[in-house]
């Protein structure tokens, strides 16, 4: 039987393997060395690779993000650790004006092979500045790739692919999944960016879920199965590049699609996926593509409020049921 490891271990292994394989790979961020990050994801790496390759920084996100860009442009492959996804706002200029555009602006002469690993996810009772899921912001910027692992297996394979990619890649890990286990092969494998995965086949409705929203989709599918509804569950795994082909194929098959992502719903990831499917599969759809994102509110601290803001199995299953039953949802 395949061994099971946690998502945290998977990330750690991926990085360790790539650091062994390629001397130019190094880690940089706050409390990544001895502390191994507050989530302990990087524990043990400084012991193996030393403080030259696992670099603790001052609390200066724009600074070390910019430095990673410069290091990447000149022959290194930095992995930047951004402690919380909410701090993306601080590094946007270095990430979006510099890293994302350098290859293009230089006419292909300079490359910026770096990985920015950060996280997403609410319901940790961490309030509005430590709970955001900001993948839509970076997905909007040409030149960046964006991966969203949905399990330990994906986390390892995507991380390894990202490290070897010659472009800036942003990886969002769900901080609530670090202790979730999944089967992960001992042998080396990579998951190319841009390949969605069908997690469950079904013919009645397609549930597309990113990151931990995969679990929400799988939970809903499980529940629907008990009611005789066969849901197909797909994880895009990366949203840039987006495996449009796989998503469309499923849409054509089921004619009904629900997209779930934990970022704010408006102007978020679900909008793009829904718009593309509508655009390219419109005449094959029985119903509008439905979307579930986080509520359009700053994440509240109080548990009774916070839990209301994220997509749930209940809500997704319910919507799927109505879609399949042919009920008009949100009909104007």
């Amino acid at each position: 039987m395949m061994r099971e490891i946690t998502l945290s271990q998977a990330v750690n292994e991926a990085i360790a393997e790539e650091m062994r394989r390629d001397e130019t790979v190094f880690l940089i961020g706050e409390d990544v060395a001895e502390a191994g990050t507050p989530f302990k994801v990087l524990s043990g790496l400084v012991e193996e690779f030393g403080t030259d390759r696992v670099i603790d920084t001052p609390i200066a996100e724009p600074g070390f993000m910019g430095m990673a860009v410069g290091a990447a442009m000149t022959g290194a492959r930095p992995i930047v650790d951004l402690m919380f996804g909410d701090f993306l706002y601080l590094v946007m200029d270095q990430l979006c004006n510099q890293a994302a555009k350098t290859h293009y602006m230089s006419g292909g002469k300079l490359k910026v092979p770096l990985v920015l690993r950060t996280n997403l996810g609410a319901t940790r009772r961490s309030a509005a500045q430590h709970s955001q899921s900001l993948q839509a912001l970076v997905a909007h910027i040409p030149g960046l790739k964006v991966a969203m692992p949905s399990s330990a297996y994906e986390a390892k394979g995507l991380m390894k692919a990202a490290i070897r990619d010659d472009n800036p890649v942003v990886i969002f890990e769900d901080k609530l999944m670090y202790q979730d286990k999944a089967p992960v092969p001992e042998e080396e494998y990579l998951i190319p960016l841009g390949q969605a995965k069908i997690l469950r086949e079904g013919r009645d409705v397609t549930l597309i879920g990113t990151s931990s929203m995969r679990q929400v989709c799988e939970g809903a599918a499980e529940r629907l199965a008990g009611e005789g509804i066969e849901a197909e569950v797909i994880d895009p795994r990366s949203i840039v590049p987006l495996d449009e082909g796989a998503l469309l194929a499923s849409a054509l098959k089921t004619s009904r699609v629900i997209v779930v992502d934990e970022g704010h719903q408006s102007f978020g990831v679900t909008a793009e996926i829904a718009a593309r499917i509508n655009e390219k599969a419109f005449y094959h759809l029985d119903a509008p593509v439905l979307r579930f994102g986080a509520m359009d509110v700053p994440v509240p601290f109080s548990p009774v409020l916070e839990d209301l803001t994220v997509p749930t199995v209940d809500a997704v299953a319910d919507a799927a049921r109505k879609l399949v039953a042919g009920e008009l949802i949100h009909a104007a």
Partner: protein
Amino acid sequence: MNELAPTPDLPEGANAQDYLRMYRQMVRIRAFEDSANQLYLDARMPGLTHMYSGEEAVAVGICEALERTDKITSTHRGHGHCVAKGAEFKPMFCELLGKVEGYCRGKGGSMHIADQSNGNLGANAIVGGSMGIATGSALRAKLQGADDVTVCFFGDGATAQGLLYEVMNMAALWSLPVIYACENNGYSEYTKTEEIAAGSILARAEAFGIEAHQVDGQDVLAVNTLARDLVARARKGEGPFFIELMTYRYHGHHVGDINRLYYRSKEEEATWKETRDPITLFGAWLTREGVASEEDLQGIESAVRAEAAEAVSYALDAAYPDVSEVTMHVYAGEG
């Protein structure tokens, strides 16, 4: 330095009541933090929190130099500032527990706790995130001819954020009534200050033409004396100022940071607690100077502890916000 100077430069107009209020405020912070920590250990508090214990003389020494109309900005380690600026226990514990009677109606929690009506512009979960806010408050005061002063609290770790230098530059150019209060507790998270701060923190402020002082952050009188002077001068338009307050946090970085040996020793912690505790030192000074008796101080302590206990149980029983609150306050002027 194991005891406070016997005859400090007494703040003008200070008297026994002022001293005892300062003492009481320090004890209140300690009691608040002990209760918060216990709530965490009992798994009755959602999320995490960062304890201010050990640093009480900083918040109290400074906030006792402020008027209610003066403003402060606070940090992720913000309970101390909140108490010192005049907050009550009940709405504070309610906030910590996500209850609707909290200062932020339970929406902010520990990292955003603030009694806004006392001029606390908010705790901030972005390290350095409030430096602009504090400086902007001071700009507003100057533009509107108001005479309030704004104090910006932040840690040694936050000095690594470029925002500080951007706003110090503007504060200096425009002589704004803002005081940058750097709480140097020796660590940012799990890293020692010397590993993350090159050169001299004071010199950085001075390079922008800002008068900068270092002060023993365990000595509430020293802090308060300096703060009174600088606040008065800032009010007259002589700001900005910078203070580096040398202090120590007793607990881990946050309540869950229990195994600390890999970044600091038990001995170091013990030395600070045993020889440099701001409450013990000030208590000893108060009795030595005859301002209060041991019994007086114990009386304060037990009254405060009782107040805290009562507030905790009040908060535990208090109501959560109604679910309708979730979409409320996203935009001002819309319910």
